[in-house]
């Protein structure tokens, strides 16, 4: 009897402990809102994406200091998809099913986003994508806080055409989906402006291309025909350093043939010898050199958080800053983190960007941003030489490609579609 009761007591106790343990975990789970951070921390993309992971941790940290969200603390869940595109999809699934995150902030390359897309749509998650991209996409579950082509490429070309009187064009890019689509749009745009096809030279190179001698020599020849020439560069990542070095060595100065780049920002410049680059251009929606109190505060906060006074800020970081704060506002507005409610609530949400305007989430899940064109300076910073006088609305489907011209994205009723054809009045049914 005694033995029995002792055993019983033990059993009861352990059950009680167990139930307590369960209860406490469930309480803790409800106490926090989980936010997924899906950026490569190893592999080739680690160069760019590690910074964005740190940015997210900083933003979450700051929000928690302000008292969290809906009375709960935010809890970051960081995973490493290791620059491996299929792994992005797997990790996204893990974040949504196992960790049950309320939103994911992540991806850099377009191919990683395309790989995550089916998972995020199937599980009805939310993805905030912070990098400039080629457009031609609008998913119900993705918010594109980077630039669409009309917020970067088209204004840059306009600047070259109108202000620098450029007549001949070299479109040089790395051989993958973003440069190819962007160049297709740009080619159509230039032709619509009356540029002859013999005045356009298109060139693609592999990832990490390092021997630029003959291509730069070709550019030089192409540019010496007496008409003002510019290079529009969608060259991505590591290939940029040898490219600019070769330009400098072959004596091509920014005054003769300016290069406007869409993938070279402050972070990339910090790993380059900037001497040969001075005067070349880049188009972004944010520069670290932008003179605004908000930006100064952001830079200080970043340097303090990362404990390195030399670190720079860049455009995708600003995109995360806007995206995260818009999500916070939308969750507060909806009173819940439920994806459907947040999707509805976030459209029309406004948040001040770091360049001095107020960005707005549009019905096509893109945001409005200013477009800045800057010249590279010897200290690795940009000086703004031109900027749009008001914010430009991101356009998911380019108006310069015949196929996508009639298509619009609008996630509000009554259309509620990412690719609504205004001619046939039909939603193609394709989710993105």
């Amino acid at each position, binding site marked *: 009897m005694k033995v029995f009761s002792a055993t019983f007591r033990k059993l009861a106790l352990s059950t009680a402990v167990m139930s307590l343990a369960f209860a406490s975990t469930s309480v803790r789970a409800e106490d926090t809102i989980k936010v997924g951070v899906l950026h490569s921390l190893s592999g*080739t993309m*680690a*160069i760019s994406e*590690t910074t964005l992971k740190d940015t997210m941790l900083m933003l979450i940290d700051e929000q928690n200091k302000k008292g969290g969200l809906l009375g709960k603390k935010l809890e970051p869940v960081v995973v490493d998809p290791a620059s491996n595109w299929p792994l992005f999809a797997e990790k996204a699934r893990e974040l949504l099913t196992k960790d049950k995150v309320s939103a994911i902030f992540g991806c850099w390359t377009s191919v990683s986003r395309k790989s995550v897309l089916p998972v995020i749509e199937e599980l009805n998650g939310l993805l905030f994508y912070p990098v400039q991209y080629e457009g031609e996409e609008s998913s119900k579950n993705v918010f594109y806080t980077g630039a669409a082509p009309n917020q970067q490429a088209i204004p840059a070309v306009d600047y070259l055409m109108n202000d*620098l009187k450029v007549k001949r064009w070299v479109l040089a890019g790395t*051989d993958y989906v973003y440069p190819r689509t962007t160049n297709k749009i740009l080619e159509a745009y230039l032709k619509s402006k009356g540029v002859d096809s013999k005045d356009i030279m298109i*060139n*693609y*190179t*592999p990832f*990490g*291309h*390092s*021997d630029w*001698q*003959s*291509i730069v*020599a*070709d550019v030089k020849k192409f540019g*010496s*025909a*007496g008409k003002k020439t510019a290079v529009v560069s969608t060259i991505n990542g*590591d290939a940029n*350093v*040898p490219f600019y*070095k*070769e330009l*400098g*060595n*072959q*004596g091509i100065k*920014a*005054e*003769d043939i*300016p290069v406007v780049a869409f993938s070279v920002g402050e*972070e990339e410049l*910090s*790993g*380059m*010898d*900037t*001497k*040969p680059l001075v*005067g070349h251009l880049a188009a972004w929606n944010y520069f670290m050199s932008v003179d605004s109190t908000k930006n100064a505060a952001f830079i200080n906060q970043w340097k303090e958080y990362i404990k390195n006074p030399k670190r720079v800020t860049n455009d995708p970081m600003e995109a995360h800053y806007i995206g995260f704060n818009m999500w916070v506002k939308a969750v507060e507005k909806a009173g819940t983190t439920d994806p459907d409610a947040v999707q509805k609530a976030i459209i029309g949400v406004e948040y001040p960007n770091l360049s001095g305007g107020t960005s707005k989430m549009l019905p096509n899940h893109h945001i409005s941003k200013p477009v800045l064109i800057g*010249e590279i*300076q*010897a200290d690795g910073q940009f*000086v703004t*030489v031109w900027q749009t006088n008001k914010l430009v609305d991101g356009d998911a489907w380019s108006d310069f490609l015949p196929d996508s011209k009639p298509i619009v994205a609008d996630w509000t009723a009554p259309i509620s579609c990412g690719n609504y054809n205004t001619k046939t009045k039909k939603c193609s049914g394709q989710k993105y």
Partner: protein
Amino acid sequence: MNAYSHLRFLRNGFLACLCLCFSSSLMAEGSLAELLDAFRTGGMQDKEAGLDKSLLSKINVNNRIRTLLKKGIALQQLNVADDKTRLAAVETLGKLSDPATVKVLTDRLLVETNQGVLEAIRRLVLIDQLQNGNKDERIKAIDTLKEFNSQEVVNQLQAMTEKEGESFKENDTDIRNLASAALTEIKGRIQAYAAVETVFFGLSLGAVLVLSAIGLAITFGVMGIINMAHGELMMLGAYTVYVLQQLMPEYLGLATVLSIPVAFLVAGLTGIAIERGIIRHLYGRPLETLLATFGVSLFLQQTVRSIFSPLNRSVSSPSWMSGSWQINDFLALTWNRFYILIFSLLVFAALVQILKRTKLGLEVRAVSQNRAMARAMGIPSGQVDALTFGLGSGIAGIAGVALSQITNVGPNLGQSYIVDSFMVVVFGGVGNLYGTLLAGFSLGIANKFLEPYAGAVLAKILVLIFIILFIQKRPRGLFPQKGRAVES
């Protein structure tokens, strides 16, 4: 001189507010004299008034201002005593091709004494006469100018032979025919120069391939070790340059030269450590060696990431390695490529000498040909293995120094060269240094001749396909090793 020095000052990036007010109002009118005047007075006021610094804001120089300043400086430099500066100024003005400067240059002809500068000015005046002279002058201009290799001349002649709508831009048939004949003549020369240029590009690409493969030719070719960490040893060499440049930022050139022996030591010692620590236990087991060295390569990459951060590091080129050797308008050889070409040949020659003339070389050849026999003759094969591997690794380090001058210095540097290195060694014939040299250069040149037709992506693929087919036909590469030792 006063304005000139002010302009230099401005060009360095500090434009006072005052100056900008003047320049922006003047740029619309475009009068150069006024602009210069404004700069002069602006600069003086700035100095004399002793302005409060906080009232001034830094105005950044952009391309438009830079071009204007360039022109202004060149015009001022026309009067400088130094002949070379004057010549450079004339050339700058020639490139800007502004009709207004022709007048200034014609005036200069009267006072100029230096023969070189005189010739340069005369040429510019002739180019102007191509369009604006009377018929005799124009014919004479075409006749004289067709001897020169000048892009500006080509453009002018091209314009004269082109059609505008139905009629020709140039009405005079005689001049048009002369221009078109001159153009054909110049274009023939351009093609010849282009061929020379392509060969140079090919050789320099080949030099990079040879440099990165030659260390591998020792470790893989002579010793038969598949060393996947070869690329990372190059990376160590490149980081050595970075570290040395950080240590002595004042002497970039010296740091770069010094890093050649230092990189050899760093990479060589790392190589010896890898050989003694890992590879020695795996001789005769190629698959395990491959996996183990792959592990080492990941380890080295991550170490560099932890120490130096995953971001690329910026390595500067010393001034004598920047820019190009401008032979004429149609042919320019870039200095960094030129030096790397010479450097790779030197390294190759040194290596051949080491293998042929030194005791170590003799022992290396003996061990690689017949290990058992060499041991029987009293050669400490273990020690020789370590030193050989160290030599191959050290040369990889030297290759890294060269690579730091043309590409990114980052943790992934090695990965982008490892495949190419193996390709060159296999194509050249395993165990043959001359094969590596020839393979590197021929692949480089083939790649560069294909690139204009096929594009960079396709050219690389075509070269790979060619090598695959070649290896099918001749599995031992260009120069197979002969002898009984190989057959077994």
